[in-house]
């Protein structure tokens, strides 16, 4: 549990204690005909009701049915909704369909009619009411849990946890549900309780199936006070009404409450060519990015460079005046009319409109952007990454002319050929007559030659990690992984899916020996990730496969660890780095200590931070520490360099090699041959469902290389 969690938990606990105490107070509904309908006095601060009972005491005693009934409802709703929702979310597929179908059937029964009908069956009182309400609300809980867990599953967090060695039930129950669906649990608990209050009040007021006299309930207090007539004690109806209103609003506040940040505040921009001076972007407590100076005349291309996490994107957004809420920029700024293209081209496009509708009059812009004319009627989600970037560009170019084009990491996620093509296009745009200035953010220095007119480097807010000593290649050890004639099928299931999907990679033969680093190279979508997962036993495959002496399709090989493309995937966002690592240490059976791991990856000072507070590079290092602590012998790393600048990726790879040690093996899947080649002992080039080339770095310049390999090498 994070530090924040611990701090926050005290308030509800105290409230719970107070409520429980009130509910446990003894209450004797004795009547006294001598004090019927008295107004407030010292002896009876809220007066007495129509049969001479103290209204204040009844007001408090009415908490009991709420606690009992609400508690029952909550228990039922959570007991039914959470496991089913978690199961549906974690399993997906047919499970989710049937479970959610069941939820749908139950939720089609409107709650109050259901309760009334149930009242005929099980009678009146707080518990049956709670029972019915719990059943009625369970589908809501189920759905919420399903959505959350399903989203986490889609982010492959569950897969990451299981692959890391955490039992599936534990991964679901502790990490997905308890740690990460807590908002849903809190929200729905409050909703169940608020709904119960509303229903109980209504039914008790109407006098059927609710709490019956003489047991107090705010609803029946209201009914008695109102039917006793206006001459009686007004507090007798005001008090319960206020109680219901306050508690209901409070519970809903708990259910709806979303912490809101103050909206972002920008510096005022003067029109003119781009000129930024002394730009500082700060959150509430610290400076998150700093840029002393930046100027870009029209027709030029400027690259904004810097290590990961230095705030390059924020600078662009500050210039565009679209800083996220809670951040604030200071400094001086002049800028022309501008356009901004998001990191992922698809997100720059309106997903609900076809490209033609977003760029209604493409004309010449079509050619300039390089967007294929026959794809104009496609939906954004149907475009590939490169097409999406071009479509975004098309939208910019077909709109009113701009003096500045801001592009945030436009090349991320593109394969080398697509990347080169996009860069050329951007240059063309800038060089065109009265073309705009282009400012783009990148961490890829290799793009810059022949492209950027100016390079602005940003300084990191944190010190770079210490440089590592150059690595000595040991001689190959025993075979860690042996695959022959392997075919893999996409999808996250060990058993072949029905109907049988065609394999995406066939006839593969791969060997990894101790101390080796092996690269799997190919463009996005060729099946690198699937292959890695097949090695770990997470995907279906056919053919010979032996990993650390076992067939991963029948038993999980110990000592195999995956590194995820997004290093955050394997990190439970609710835990601190130290907590995450101690779980890994437990998986590794405690042979290695957390402190040692932190020291090795250089994160001693960030041990109490949660993943969201770390930069991408830091997260990567935490995931490396995880792998080391879990006692990895064979590490399967998926695009370990993604989202890192070149220097950081090399560092990361070196660190990984270092952590695996001389007997361990590393398999790296990447689309960037040039980047990983220096690190690898052998490279397998995957293309169009097959392995088209295998070679070691020294053989790279061999003219007999497959044309695709040559193409890849040239892209560097």
């Amino acid at each position, binding site marked *: 549990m994070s530090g924040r969690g611990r701090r926050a938990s005290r308030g509800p606990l105290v409230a719970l204690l107070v409520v429980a105490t009130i509910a446990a107070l003894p209450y004797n*509904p*004795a*009547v006294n*005909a*001598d004090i*019927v309908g008295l107004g407030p006095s010292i002896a009876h601060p809220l007066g007495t009701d*129509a*049969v*001479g009972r103290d209204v204040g005491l009844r007001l408090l005693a009415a908490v009991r049915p709420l606690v009992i009934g609400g508690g029952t409802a909550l228990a039922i709703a959570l007991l039914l909704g959470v496991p089913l929702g978690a199961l549906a979310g974690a399993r997906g597929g047919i499970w989710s369909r049937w479970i959610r179908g069941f939820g749908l059937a139950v939720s089609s029964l409107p709650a109050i009619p259901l309760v009334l009908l149930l009242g005929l069956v099980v009678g009146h009182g707080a518990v049956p009411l709670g029972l019915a309400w719990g059943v009625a609300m369970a589908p809501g809980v189920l759905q919420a849990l399903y959505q959350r867990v399903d989203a986490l599953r889609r982010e492959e967090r569950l897969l990451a946890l299981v692959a890391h060695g955490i039992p599936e039930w534990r991964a679901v129950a502790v990490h997905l549900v308890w740690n990460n669906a807590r908002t849903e649990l809190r929200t729905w608990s409050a909703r169940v309780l608020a709904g119960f209050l509303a229903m109980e009040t209504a039914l008790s007021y109407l*006098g059927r199936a609710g709490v*019956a*006299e*003489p047991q107090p309930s705010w609803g029946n207090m209201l009914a*008695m006070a*109102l*039917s*006793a*007539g206006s*001459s009686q004690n007004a507090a007798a109806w005001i008090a319960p009404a206020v109680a219901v209103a306050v508690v209901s609003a409070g519970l809903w506040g708990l259910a709806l409450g979303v912490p809101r940040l103050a909206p972002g505040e920008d510096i005022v921009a003067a029109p003119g060519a781009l000129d930024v001076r002394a730009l500082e972007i700060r959150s509430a407590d610290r400076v998150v990015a700093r840029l002393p100076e930046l100027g870009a005349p029209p027709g030029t291309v400027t690259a904004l460079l810097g290590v990961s996490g230095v705030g390059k994107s924020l600078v662009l957004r500050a210039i565009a005046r679209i800083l996220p809420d809670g951040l604030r920029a200071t400094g001086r700024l002049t800028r022309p009319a501008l356009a901004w293209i998001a990191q992922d081209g698809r997100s720059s496009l309106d997903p609900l409109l076809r490209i033609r509708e977003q760029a209604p009059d493409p004309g010449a812009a079509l050619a300039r952007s390089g967007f294929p004319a026959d794809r104009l009627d496609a939906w954004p989600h149907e475009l590939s990454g490169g097409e999406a970037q071009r479509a975004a560009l098309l939208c910019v170019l077909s709109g009113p002319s701009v003096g500045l084009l801001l592009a945030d990491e436009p090349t991320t996620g593109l394969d080398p050929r697509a990347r080169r093509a996009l860069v050329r296009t951007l240059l063309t745009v800038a060089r065109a007559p009265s073309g705009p200035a282009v400012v783009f953010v990148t961490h890829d220095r290799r793009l810059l030659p022949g492209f950027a007119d100016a390079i602005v480097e940003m300084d990191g807010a944190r010190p770079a990690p210490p440089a590592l000593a150059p690595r000595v290649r040991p001689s190959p050890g025993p075979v860690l992984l042996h695959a022959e004639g392997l075919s893999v099928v996409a999808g996250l299931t060990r058993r072949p899916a029905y109907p049988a999907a065609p394999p995406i990679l066939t006839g593969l033969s791969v060997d990894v020996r101790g101390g080796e680093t092996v690269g799997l190279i190919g463009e996005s979508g060729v099946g690198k990730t699937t292959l890695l997962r097949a090695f770990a036993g997470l995907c279906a495959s056919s053919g010979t496969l032996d990993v650390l002496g076992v067939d991963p399709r029948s038993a999980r090989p110990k000592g195999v660890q995956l590194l995820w493309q997004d290093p955050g995937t394997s990190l439970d966002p609710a835990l601190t780095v130290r907590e995450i690592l101690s779980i890994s240490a437990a998986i590794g059976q405690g042979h290695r200590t957390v402190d040692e791991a932190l020291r090795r990856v250089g994160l001693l000072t960030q041990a109490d931070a949660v993943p969201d507070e770390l930069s991408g590079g830091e997260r990567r290092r935490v995931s490396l520490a995880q792998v080391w602590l879990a006692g990895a012998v064979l590490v399967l790393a998926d695009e370990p360099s993604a989202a890192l600048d070149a220097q950081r990726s090399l560092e990361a790879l070196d660190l990984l090699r270092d952590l695996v040690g001389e007997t361990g093996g590393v398999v790296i899947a990447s689309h960037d041959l040039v980047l990983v080649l220096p690190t690898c002992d052998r490279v397998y080039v995957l293309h169009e469902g097959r392995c088209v080339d295998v070679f070691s770095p020294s053989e790279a310049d061999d003219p007999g290389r497959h044309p695709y390999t040559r193409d890849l090498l040239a892209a560097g």
Partner: protein
Amino acid sequence: MARSPRHLPLPWLLALAPLGALVLGTAAAAQLRYAEDQAPAIVNPLFTTSMAETRVGELVFQSLYADDHTLASVPQLAESGELSTDRMHMTVRLRDSVNWQDGSPFTAKDVVFTVHAMKDPATASTEAGRAQFISDCREVGDHAVQFDFVRPELRPEDKLTFKILPAAAFAGLPVKRTDAFHLAPIGTGPWSLVKYNDDNSVSFSANPGYKGPDGKDDVGIAQITMKEVADKNYQAKLLLYESIDALVRVLPRDLAMLQSNRKVELYPYQTNSWWYAGFNLARAPFTDPRVRQALAEMLDVPNMLAPVGTGDLITGPYVPSSPFYNHDTPPWPHDPAAAGALLTAAGYQKDADGWYKAGRKLAITVSAHRALESAQEVTINLQSQLQAQGIDVTIDFLDEPAWRQQVWTDRNYDVVLSQWTFDRNEDIREQFYSTGSRNLMGLKDPDVDKLLDAARDANDPIARKTALRAAHQKIHDDLPMVFLWTLDSYAALSTKVRGVTVHPFAFFTWAPEWQMQ
């Protein structure tokens, strides 16, 4: 802040549109709207058990003889009657110009059918008792009926006051409660039932073919609507707010509010009614008179009455103004100590948390009809009092069907809290005679039976009065029920209704003469 019309919240307009329409709306047409706690479940005089049904029956149906303004029996559907000299037979000539509300003529067949239906055991009419004095009846021509009596009758017209049903509307005997007739009753009365509305109100409209007594064939009020308003307190408010025009029974505590309003007038109505808490005499522990007496002496009845309003406490089955009320009968004292002694004598032991016998705690369930006014306050009070003295009390509010089943049919209850209303004859025979059809408690006391027989057979007022006063004392001593109280009992009508005279029991008997302003 100026906002273009496009952004005006549409739902508000939606919600307000009807309000705008209201400005153009017109007030409701003149009609008499009266409120009942519960709409009558059955509009069939053969099965009447509640006052609400009685009142509706009075609107729709007629009888051979009916009360005139001086409460003397005068011919209604009858033209004239001729009693034989031995007083064992009577030939009643029927009016020949009367039609049923569906247009068919009213004939002797209908009268004979009605009497046979009332006497038919398979029909199980709740009004069977009213026809017991008739041994047989037959048509003598289209418009004459001859009745044979069980015993000589002095004034049979005083008993021929049951409502007459159209024979053609039924498939024959036996008649069932659920026969379609109960939803679309056909009578000869001044109003016909038009519709059971969806809001549980019932609409009546003047019967154009109505033949009133003495040729008064027109009805002053064209439309009557019975509205179901479960909340008594709300009924009073609605009358004040002029949303209804009549309230058949006002809660005592609302009297002050209503009478201070100049647009409302109060009329004493249904005054012969009293409350009781009855014991199931067939069920332990109530078989033991000591337990009953202990319970009676544990109750502080004035305290129970306080939240309801003003009323008179009673010691027996009559209201204090009754000529049969025995003023010499003392009430059971409120004496918990003596009650404790009685329970001890009955074999109970007092523990820290209550009375035990053979390891079982003395616990009772009090059943009350949901529609009983102020029942909630009273039961809460009763429960609180008994629980304070170590007796567990569960309250069970019963709906009409459950009440009829559990209390009337199965006699499945411990203690019932209820109210009886009597007409001016205050005949308690059915309630307390050992074979009485309304003897819900199951009292079987030969002495009481003897006294009730004597009262029935008495042929002078002094003898009847004397017998019933003795019965009062005896029933009080037998303690089949704790007699609680009689409440101030009024109907309230808007001053818009003019010419109002309220029949003390059936309410609407003289309603044809009422006018709406």
